[in-house]
């Protein structure tokens, strides 16, 4: 089974190298086909991993270097549990979808796109599976470098250059923070393996070094996750990256940031920080991210930027789930992220079709232009609905697990925050759809962010729209079905328990013991969840209707919104200053909590 995990990383990377090696020798279609085959193979391998994760973790030591007798890790390991395998599978599925879509989407571009996307996939799978801190950083950078280049794919315009630049600089500095934290941890523990670090730190009071190391590595991952105030790059990158690339950024890359944050906490730091209550810190971060993202989402008329802020808001919701520091919260975040990834992916693909066809991402200029596109409209509506999560559809299951977790922990405000965030973001998404596909609503809205260039849209017919819509449709059906998937909830709960059990992690990784998973429990949807699902749906429709009327607001409420928007200046110096401030603030809060 370990070989399967190794192959899931090696195959996309070898395929990327092979495509680049034959760059000018073979026709582009051969490359595209090879890339799709490699991505699909990787997806199949990750599904095999998911299917095998009912029991103990799959642990693979590269080079055959199993730990020494005194439990010192000398090599690098992959430690595959259900959550890691699951997010790797999500990455592989979305990459496959993006490659199929781009077969018909790009008119030219050569072999760069498949090569970079496959490198991105290899990086994401490695990032999801590795059990070694420095190796994590390596895959973080591999993911990063491929993603920076993909952002600037449409290099003829300045927007992509600026977006890629902001993305590269902020995420690289995040990477340096990870590395500085790795240095501190290595100095303290003399280890790079997460299990070994965790065991070394276990049961000792967290001093300044532990707090700083946690803060630095966590901030690196939170930059990738686009948590407020490290989120600035995300909207810029999404606004300019090609639609199939946005699918990967929003659908799985930022979720990997949250995943890594959780993994870091539960493998390395829970033993020392767990004694103290970090919950208010992480929940506060999540609530801030969820609300800031949701408000800015409502204010957008650039369709991809709107979807990007919706992603930021959802990152906040996932952080709320993680921040409950409980099994149900984590399980909810995981299932939620899965359904969100597929739904958001389909929405970005539809946005790509619209931009390709009409030449603008601007909601107001697009008003009523896509009235005839029934297929795209249907997929878009389904995607919006999946994000709302009405009873038994889309994100509903994840949302209800998260709500259960929050109520169990007595944090009912978390439920309220999550619902407000999803009402606002889903309302904005539906509003844009109603304008574009139905021609509803007023044609001007002063509240929305002005677009720099208000060009008259160009109409173009792209020949293979059926394929594009079909790919988006498959993703959205998958997302909707996750609300109903039998057995998903108990498996997610068991996976979350496994994820949080650091003693089992150490035993399995360092001592090659087999810790059998507990039998699956049951899951019953509570009546409250159904009520809350309906409330979310009603709220989203109300926000949508309010938006279509031009967001009537008292004047006093407009000024703070403008101020919040003005903070998103596009200037890298501002973004990095916020990052430094955020790091110091997080470090201060963790210091206080660890007292």
């Amino acid at each position: 089974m370990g070989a399967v995990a190794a192959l899931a990383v090696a195959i996309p990377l070898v395929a990327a190298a092979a495509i680049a090696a034959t760059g000018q020798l073979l026709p582009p279609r051969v490359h595209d086909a090879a890339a799709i085959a490699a991505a699909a193979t990787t997806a199949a391998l990750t599904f095999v991993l998911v299917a095998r994760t009912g029991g103990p973790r799959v642990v693979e030591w590269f080079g055959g270097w199993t730990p020494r007798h005194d439990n010192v890790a000398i090599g690098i390991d992959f430690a595959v549990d259900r959550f890691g395998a699951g997010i790797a599978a999500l990455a592989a599925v979305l990459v496959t979808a993006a490659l199929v879509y781009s077969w018909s989407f790009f008119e030219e571009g050569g072999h760069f796109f498949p090569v970079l996307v496959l490198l991105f996939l290899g990086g994401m799978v490695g990032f999801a599976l590795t059990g070694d801190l420095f190796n994590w950083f390596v895959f973080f950078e591999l993911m990063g470098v491929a993603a920076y280049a993909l952002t600037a794919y449409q290099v003829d315009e300045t927007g992509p250059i600026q977006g890629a630049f902001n993305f590269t600089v902020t995420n690289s500095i995040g990477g340096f923070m990870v590395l500085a934290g790795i240095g501190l941890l290595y100095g303290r523990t003399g280890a790079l393996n997460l299990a070994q670090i965790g065991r070394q730190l276990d049961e000792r009071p967290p001093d300044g070094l532990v707090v700083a190391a946690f803060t630095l590595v966590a901030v690196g991952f939170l930059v990738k996750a686009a948590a407020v105030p490290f989120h600035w790059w995300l909207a810029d990158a999404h606004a300019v990256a090609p639609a199939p690339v946005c699918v990967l950024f929003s659908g799985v890359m930022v979720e990997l940031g949250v995943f890594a944050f959780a993994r870091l906490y539960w493998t390395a730091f829970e033993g020392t920080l767990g004694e103290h209550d970090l919950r208010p810190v992480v929940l506060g971060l999540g609530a801030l991210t969820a609300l800031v993202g949701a408000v800015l989402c409502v204010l957008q008329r650039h369709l991809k930027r709107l979807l990007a802020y919706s992603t930021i808001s959802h990152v906040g919701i996932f952080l709320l789930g993680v921040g409950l520091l409980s099994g149900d919260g984590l399980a909810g975040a995981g299932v939620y992220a899965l359904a969100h990834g597929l739904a958001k992916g389909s929405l970005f693909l539809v946005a790509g079709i619209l931009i390709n066809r009409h030449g603008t991402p601007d909601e107001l200029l697009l008003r009523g232009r896509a009235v005839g596109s029934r297929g795209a409209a249907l997929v878009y509506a389904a995607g919006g609905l999946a994000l709302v999560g009405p009873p038994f559809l889309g994100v509903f299951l994840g949302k209800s697990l998260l709500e259960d977790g929050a109520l169990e922990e007595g944090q009912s405000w978390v439920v309220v925050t999550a619902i407000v965030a999803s009402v606002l973001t889903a309302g904005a998404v539906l509003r844009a759809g109603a304008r574009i596909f139905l021609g509803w609503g007023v044609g001007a809205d002063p509240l929305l962010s002005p677009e720099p260039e208000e060009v008259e849209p160009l109409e173009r017919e792209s020949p293979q729209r059926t394929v594009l819509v079909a790919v988006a449709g498959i993703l959205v059906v998958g997302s909707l079905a996750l609300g109903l998937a039998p057995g998903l909830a108990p498996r997610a709960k068991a996976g979350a328990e496994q994820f949080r059990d650091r003693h089992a992690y150490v035993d399995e990784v360092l001592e090659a013991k087999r810790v059998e998973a507990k039998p699956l429990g049951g899951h019953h949807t509570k009546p409250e969840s159904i009520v809350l699902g309906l409330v979310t749906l009603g709220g989203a429709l109300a926000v949508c209707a309010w938006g279509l009327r031009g967001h009537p607001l008292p004047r006093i409420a407009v000024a703070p919104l403008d101020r919040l928007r003005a903070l998103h200046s596009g200037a890298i110096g501002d973004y990095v200053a916020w990052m430094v401030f955020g790091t110091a603030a997080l470090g201060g809060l963790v210091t206080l909590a660890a007292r």
Partner: protein
Amino acid sequence: MSHAPYVVAAWLFLAGIYGVVTSRNMIHLAVCMAVTQSSTYVLLLAIGYVDGGTAPIYRDIPVGTKVVDPVVPALVLTDIVVSVTLTALVLTLASRAHASKGTMDPDALPELKG
């Protein structure tokens, strides 16, 4: 005094970020990023140093000689490669921004706002 090398690393880290925050030129910014990253080389190698140790290369030294940690150099080698790639990427973006907008001032690229 025995912790001064680590403080050097912390200083370089902050100095580099200061450069990034205040930079008016994308080339300058790229080099400041490299300075920030070089703080991590200093940190890692300082951590792995052993007083009186030699390089872990058993060509001219007998087995059993006191050596410095062989792991951190391996990490720093990777770190350095990452640094070059990032420098090359940021410089490329700077060059492209210059070609299309005629400026390398990151504050003068106004397209993405809100």
